[in-house]
């Protein structure tokens, strides 16, 4: 059993409510942190080696130390709960079942950063979770953990929940800030970075839900202890949301010492592929990261066992590796069609492009159309090269990384599964006739937690 520090209490009956959470050691991190100097809290987070869990993996302590502190200007912490990357549903789990862990993490982090008004920006579709969070905030406030002069420190802190309204791009931190200001989610040109000029032009830190929840065990254990979990620069634990063709889809906390093979096949995690099917491929870190065929997924190009760590998942770069990303782990069995899946992703990115830059706006539209043609049997061989060309022209030429996020899955699908694209072109009639069914997945599968 791997070490758990986030979901270790998730199974306790009633942990969603304050009394149970508190009885089980909750809010100890706030008690401890508010007796420390804010700079010392930042120092612990630095020592922990925690890397942002939203996708980019940027060291959190370093990000915090960048925040500008001009005299007399309020600063803000914003929690990114937009969670919209296909394959990703871990933050939802955390907020739904142990909301106080996030609230506790937010109070500690707000103290460290000097944020008196902290915002949770949550995707609009998670409407019922808004109620759960608001309830947890009220409970925390009634017990003196939020509001004015918390624990007689003179520190005032409020947490507000802001609901989005359906736009993947609002997960990008500057788009999120625009949205929080009541505007369209158009990413800003950086610099200036949010740490200098964020929401209402004030210094702002945007962090993912899981990142901010992890601050709680970091303070409780101490940064150095936390850093002992995991390996190398992959310290601590990571939530992985596993889906697709596996026996036990769900949210798992791993301590980054296990192999990909163990994660897929062991009963403790995904439980293997159902119906005796073989593993075909996997997108290990959310829809934006490269897909890998089974052989490169389980072993790196050097023939080493691939591990569930930031370093190992990206070993080989994009030629033979992928990324940890957001931890959205999408598994394909041998019957699945990579072209069709890539087409749905291309449609997703076209739908979600904010339209500000032409390579992204036009390119995502073209990629969707071409992939649709290929998938439905009216594609040409030259379309495959055209697709390759388009994705290459998007990558690196846009204001925000959504362009790259749209280009990478297409590039990886062609790189590793070109024969499948060619099959579609060579077999137009069969391509049209193919039927996707509920197949064997109509049963109520066990959804697993922890």
């Amino acid at each position, binding site marked *: 059993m791997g070490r758990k520090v986030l979901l270790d209490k998730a199974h306790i009956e009633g942990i969603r409510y304050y009394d149970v959470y508190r009885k089980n050691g909750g809010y100890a991190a706030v008690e401890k942190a508010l007796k420390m100097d804010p700079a010392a809290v930042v120092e612990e987070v630095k020592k922990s080696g925690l890397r942002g869990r939203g996708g980019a993996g940027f060291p959190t302590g370093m990000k915090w130390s960048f925040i500008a502190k001009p005299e007399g200007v309020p600063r803000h912490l914003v929690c990114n709960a937009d969670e919209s990357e296909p394959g990703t549903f871990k933050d939802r789990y955390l907020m739904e079942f142990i909301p106080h862990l996030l609230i506790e993490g937010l109070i500690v982090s707000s103290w460290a950063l000097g944020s008196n008004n902290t915002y949770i920006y949550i995707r609009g579709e998670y*409407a019922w979770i808004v109620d759960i969070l608001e309830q947890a905030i009220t409970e925390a406030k009634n017990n003196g953990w939020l509001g004015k002069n918390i624990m007689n420190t003179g520190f005032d802190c409020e947490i507000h929940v802001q609901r989005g*309204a359906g736009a993947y791009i609002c997960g990008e931190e500057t788009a999120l800030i625009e949205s929080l200001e*009541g505007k369209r989610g158009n990413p800003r040109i950086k610099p200036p970075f949010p740490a200098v000029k964020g929401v209402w032009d004030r210094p702002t830190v945007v962090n993912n839900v899981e990142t901010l929840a992890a601050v709680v065990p970091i303070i409780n254990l101490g940064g150095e202890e936390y850093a002992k979990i995991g390996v190398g620069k992959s310290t601590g634990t990571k939530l992985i949301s*596993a889906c697709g063709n596996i026996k036990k889809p769900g949210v798992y906390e791993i301590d980054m010492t296990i192999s990909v093979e163990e994660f897929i096949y062991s009963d403790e995690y995904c439980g293997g592929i159902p119906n005796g099917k073989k593993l075909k491929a996997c997108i290990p870190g959310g829809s934006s990261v490269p897909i890998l065929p089974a052989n490169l997924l389980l072993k790196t190009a050097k023939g080493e066992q691939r591990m569930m760590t930031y370093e190992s998942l990206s070993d080989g770069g994009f030629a033979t590796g992928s990324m940890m990303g957001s931890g959205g782990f999408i598994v394909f069995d041998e019957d699945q069609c990579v072209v069709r899946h890539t087409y749905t992703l291309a449609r997703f990115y076209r739908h979600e492009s904010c339209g500000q830059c032409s390579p992204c706006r036009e390119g995502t539209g073209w990629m969707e159309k071409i992939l649709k043609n290929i998938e439905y049997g009216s594609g040409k061989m030259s379309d495959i090269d055209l697709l390759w060309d388009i994705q290459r022209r998007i990558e690196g030429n846009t204001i925000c990384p959504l362009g790259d996020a749209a280009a990478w899955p297409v590039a990886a699908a062609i790189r590793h599964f070109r024969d499948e694209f060619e099959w579609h072109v060579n077999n137009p009639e069969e391509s049209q006739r193919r039927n996707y069914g509920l197949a064997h997945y109509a049963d109520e599968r066990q959804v697993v937690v922890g």
Partner: protein
Amino acid sequence: MIQFSDEKMTEVRRLIARYPEGKQKSALLPVLHLAQETFGGWLSSETMDYVASLLQIEPIEVYEVATFYSMYNLKPVGKYMFEVCQTGPCMLNGSDDIIKYIGETLSIKPGETTADGLFTLKTVECLGACGYAPMMQMGKHYREHLTKEKVDAIIAECRRNAAANN
């Protein structure tokens, strides 16, 4: 003329109070949600103009936002909206079939509403429930692990509720 009740106005004021002085525009997204819920499930230009007046911003600022976000409906929708996810991870678990089945059962295509105004079918992109696929959103909640039988039961349940409320 449309207007929020006193109770809803209290909520609007609570929302505005969460932002710094003069930044009431930040309340636009939540106030639009409230307006959509209150005034028939969609945002007419009258509703949007009303929201603009409440937040003391130009109507164009509201239209810009209302047209950007997928959860705001710019035309009337059915009493029950089935928003079925069609993105890759759901597709791997049969969402194409579910969309087709709902369409056939209700005799509508995605984007359409049944003649009795009861159901709207809409395809949406990943809703963060990929491990519980196939799934759809219905109002404030998710319906997950959909099967044809479950879809039948949900439709029957909606019909019963609608009949009971009439």
